[in-house]
């Protein structure tokens, strides 16, 4: 160090978040001071939602390998942060999804059949087979529309939250994204606008350590993702995202702050993407199995189950009933989805605008009166 450095203080402040991660459930299943102390039925409800989510994930991956659906992007290992945060949103609140949050959508009430129809892109798919599987939408459940381009939902969520506030409602909007998405322009802009507007929005960063093959260390040189809040005057917090109670607790606090008019918050949820990025990805090409095994030891489902067991609220019989039940329900939905027709041809031209202009009428007529494609797939 030169002595000059004393008069020219060029430095990065120490991270205030480094060692500060909110946790509730200890290894032995007991809980710490941040325990939200929810009724046991509600904790069981979280657990059931997490197991259900995982069961569906496993089955859909299998279905894709059998070539029966085109694609799936799952949440293996991330169930606690997804369900805990979704559960923390009040009924009147809104959720803007990234693409791994089907568990949250089902938790909010979308029928499993509807979700499976989306996986098949059939005539009953709410998005009419226009997007890839897992690009659902659920306005009735106060749940947004999934888009592929990374990050775009963030500024939108801010504008949405701000509109709700302008209307004088008591609605908070949350928005999911991965740690990779913090590099997008939209994270920057969304956080900045939220800070300036004091919009009632909660930024939910699933830090699952990977953006496809790129590890989080290569995503940014900041010490934590929570540190990024400083740049926008947006308060932030880090939570153990494999701890559903801690996640619930922290997100709920943020929602209540926002509802009180105290503005946005950023939550970094520490978790791990146990599976591949999607069914198109084989992570063995870029990460060591050791790392995966290590994280498996912090499995959020196992952890919550241990807690439930200390409460005497769960056992193997219930577990089997839940898993089997979900599998059976899913099987029936799959059978139904596979029996449904494709969306009608004309739907290609609907919904580009509220009404079809002349050129789309013309093109629709051309398609409908012309020959059909042999299905190349």
């Amino acid at each position, binding site marked *: 160090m030169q002595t000059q450095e004393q008069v020219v203080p060029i430095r990065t402040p120490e991270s205030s978040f480094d060692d500060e991660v909110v946790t509730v459930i200890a290894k032995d299943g007991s809980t710490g001071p941040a325990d939200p102390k929810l009724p046991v039925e509600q904790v069981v409800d979280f657990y059931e939602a997490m197991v259900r989510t995982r069961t569906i994930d496993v089955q859909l991956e299998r279905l894709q390998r059998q070539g029966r659906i085109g694609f799936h992007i799952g949440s293996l290992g991330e169930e606690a942060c997804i369900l805990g945060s979704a559960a923390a949103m009040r009924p009147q609140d809104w959720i803007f999804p990234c693409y791994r949050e089907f568990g949250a959508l089902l938790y909010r009430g979308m029928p499993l059949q509807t979700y499976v129809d989306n996986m098949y892109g059939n005539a009953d798919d709410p998005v009419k087979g226009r997007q890839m599987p897992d690009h659902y*939408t659920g306005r009735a459940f106060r749940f947004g529309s999934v888009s592929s*381009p990374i990050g775009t939902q963030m500024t*939108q969520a801010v*504008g949405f939250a701000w509109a709700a506030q302008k209307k004088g409602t008591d609605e908070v909007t949350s928005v999911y994204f991965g740690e990779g998405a913090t590099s997008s322009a939209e994270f920057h802009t969304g956080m900045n606008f939220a800070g300036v507007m004091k919009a009632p929005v909660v930024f939910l960063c699933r830090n699952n350590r990977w953006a496809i093959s790129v590890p989080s260390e290569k995503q940014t040189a900041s010490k934590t993702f929570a540190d990024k809040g400083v740049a926008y005057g947006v308060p932030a917090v880090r939570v153990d995202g494999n701890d559903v109670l801690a996640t619930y607790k922290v997100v709920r606090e943020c929602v209540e702050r926002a509802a009180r008019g105290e503005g946005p918050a950023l939550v970094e949820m520490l978790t791990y993407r146990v599976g591949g990025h999607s069914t198109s990805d084989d992570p063995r090409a870029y990460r060591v199995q050791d790392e995966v095994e290590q994280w498996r030891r912090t499995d959020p489902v196992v952890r919550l189950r241990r807690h439930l067991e200390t409460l005497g609220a769960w056992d193997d019989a219930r577990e089997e009933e839940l898993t089997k039940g979900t599998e059976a329900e899913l099987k029936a939905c799959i059978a139904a989805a596979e029996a449904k027709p494709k969306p009608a041809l004309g739907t290609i031209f609907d919904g*580009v*605008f509220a009404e079809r202009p002349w050129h789309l009428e013309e093109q629709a007529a051309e398609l409908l009166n012309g020959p059909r494609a042999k299905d190349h797939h």
Partner: protein
Amino acid sequence: MPEMNLVQAVNDALRIAMREDDDVVVLGEDVGKVGGVFRVTQGLFDEFGEDRVIDTPLSEGGIIGTAIGMALYGMKPVPEIQFADFIFPAFDQIVSEAAKYRYRSGGEYTCPMVIRTPVGGGIRGGHYHSQSPESLFIHTAGLKVVCPSNPYDAKGLLTAAIKDPDPVLFFEPKRVYRAVKMDVPEGDLELPLGKAKVVREGEDVTVIAWGAMLFEALASAEEVEADGLSCEVLDLRTLWPVDIDTIASSVKKTGRVVIVHEAPKACGFGAELLSMVTEKCFVHLEAPPVRVTGFDTPFPYTLEMEYLPLQHRITPALRETVAYEP
């Protein structure tokens, strides 16, 4: 009826829309206290307050992204992009998101919003304050594109655009902003989107233009009238979806067509117009359709008047087209 220039007409349409509907909000860079760098939003801040006339941070992506969010909620944002040249940081939000929301969500979410932005050259703006990017948005399914040439149309079309259920790009020809004054009715004035206007009737050749170039087309039409040439001049007003009926019936009548626009030629809207005319009026064409456009170069500063498809370039095109014999 008061006389207004285009700036005042747009301002008037905004003010009326905001008085009638609390959901209409204006946002952008410098739109607030100062009323925009062209003063189009002047006075709105004083009347409607900072909650509805919002100076945003310097980010077009943020302006459009948050406007989309507001539209999804049910409001009617009218974001301003300071110059069309600066719309590109928001391009992803416009083409991947606003344009596709209704479609990709099966109709659950829609994006009614009007993106206002000044376009075009001829004001010594050079490279980055003169461009006309309309064809990029026409190519993007899900967007409507409007470009009025005069105050009356500007007021009527902006009113319609704000009421439209889909996202509309509203291009304001900045060279016309204060150059043209005309009577514009007070109070409500709405003109339907999708309708071109036959500004001048004629028999020998059809000229298709819009925005600032309309006046150049008209000047050329008058110039060649001295030679006995009768030009029909169309002002498209709505670029997309375009009014094919008016175009086709004019071209079927004249058999000859000259298309004028400021944007570069390659894949400009002129290419689409020329293609449509060829496809739909082939047997009626007595000469190859002609495009008089900006060149396939960036927009120059010093030589902008040589770059633009002004009267001096339109007139010979008219003469040659009419003189054409196969």
